[in-house]
């Protein structure tokens, strides 16, 4: 009996929240392709993924930059593993800083350009974060009206909704003292969880506007090519065009991530299977909340590669 063909979306997650646990038996240590990419990463960016440290430059104190580089490299190693297994996406989606890996996967930028963009934009963001004093927090269990009510009560702290992850799942950005006040207010209102995230910058809100031009300067150095796999724009709910990419990269840190709308639209357009390409399964959990019926797999789950079979997949986008 012929298997029904899946329409696959690869999802590239944003920055990891902590240094991943990579014991010596982890495939990243033993796999030849992974080792090659880690060596290339060290050569071109000075960052040693497996030891989570910069071997050159003066970037060691920038913890979030190291997390961003680690996220980028691990996502792409997983992507190349999927390719090696004969598993290809019909479409790509990305969440927050996952855009760099998404664009490298689509071959719109090359691996090295994405690597250096991740490092250099990360440094701009970190330096700005130290100047402005920003923060972000995750709030689970409250509805949008409650979140907006809290935001309005804290007028002056420039609190914004940074991620629309699901009907009761939001990430907020703002000045650090504002986020310090948001968390207890959310807990008092009955949030299932409200806690600070690792980011030191108030990403995805207008507090990032002052560095937009500097980021555009970095982005202008790279060569953007036609996308070989379409990348979905969560802001416009349409596919990114080559000419959209530079302004998107410069602007996305100042605009929210509309993840829920992105997933719903992709399902409406026929996606049947979301594969999270990264170290974790956070996006799969977000998708589970948005649409319980849709199939999800996380490549970060050690057992997942064995469940991904080429005979179930196809590049036909029909």
């Amino acid at each position, binding site marked *: 009996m012929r298997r029904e063909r899946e329409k696959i979306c690869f999802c590239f997650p944003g920055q990891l929240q902590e240094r991943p646990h990579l014991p010596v038996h982890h495939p990243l240590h033993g796999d030849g392709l992974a080792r090659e990419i880690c060596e290339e990463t060290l050569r071109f960016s000075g960052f040693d993924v497996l030891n989570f440290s910069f071997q050159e430059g003066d970037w060691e104190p920038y913890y979030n930059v190291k997390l961003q580089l680690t996220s980028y490299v691990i996502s792409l190693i997983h992507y190349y593993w999927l390719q090696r297994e004969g598993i290809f996406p019909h479409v790509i989606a990305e969440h927050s800083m996952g855009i760099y890996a998404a664009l490298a996967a689509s071959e719109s930028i090359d691996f090295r350009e994405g690597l250096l963009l991740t490092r250099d934009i990360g440094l701009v963001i970190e330096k700005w974060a130290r100047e402005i004093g920003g923060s972000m927090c995750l709030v689970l269990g409250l509805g949008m009206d409650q979140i907006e009510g809290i935001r309005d009560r804290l007028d002056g702290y420039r609190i914004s909704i940074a991620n629309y992850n699901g009907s009761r799942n939001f990430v907020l950005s703002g000045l650090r003292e504002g986020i310090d006040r948001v968390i207890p207010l959310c*807990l008092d209102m009955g*949030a299932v*969880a409200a*806690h600070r995230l690792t980011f030191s910058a108030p990403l995805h809100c207008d507090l990032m506007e002052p560095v937009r031009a500097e980021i555009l300067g970095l982005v202008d150095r790279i060569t953007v090519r036609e996308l070989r796999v379409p990348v979905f724009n969560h802001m416009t709910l349409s596919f990114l065009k080559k000419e959209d990419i530079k302004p998107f990269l410069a602007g996305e840190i100042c605009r929210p991530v509309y993840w829920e709308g992105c997933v719903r639209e992709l399902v409406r357009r026929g996606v049947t299977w979301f594969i999270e390409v990264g170290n974790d399964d956070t996006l799969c*959990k977000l998708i*589970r*909340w948005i649409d*319980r019926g849709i199939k999800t797999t996380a490549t970060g789950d050690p057992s997942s590669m064995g469940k991904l079979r080429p005979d179930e997949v196809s590049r036909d986008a029909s």
Partner: protein
Amino acid sequence: MTENGWDDKMAEVTEELILQLKKLIIERLKLEEVTTEDIGTDDPLFGEGLGLDSIDALELVLGLEKDYGVIIPDAEVGQKVFQSVRTIAQYVVDNRGTG
């Protein structure tokens, strides 16, 4: 039997309820590789145990509300309730139908 009735309530946590809750966890969290036998009744659910996180907790809050009419009013209660399957079962017994 005690004066405060605590032991009476403890007695109401049945194996059947424990099994139902394990099924609820597997179903709500779509843990396709996990069976009810894999979940220890007293094992921690978060961190080193089943490895759940706060996004999973939100799913469980909704599942308990839908299936048992039990409300987890805030994060503090949630932390106590979601320690293990047994603590969830105890909370269900103590609060069923009060939501």
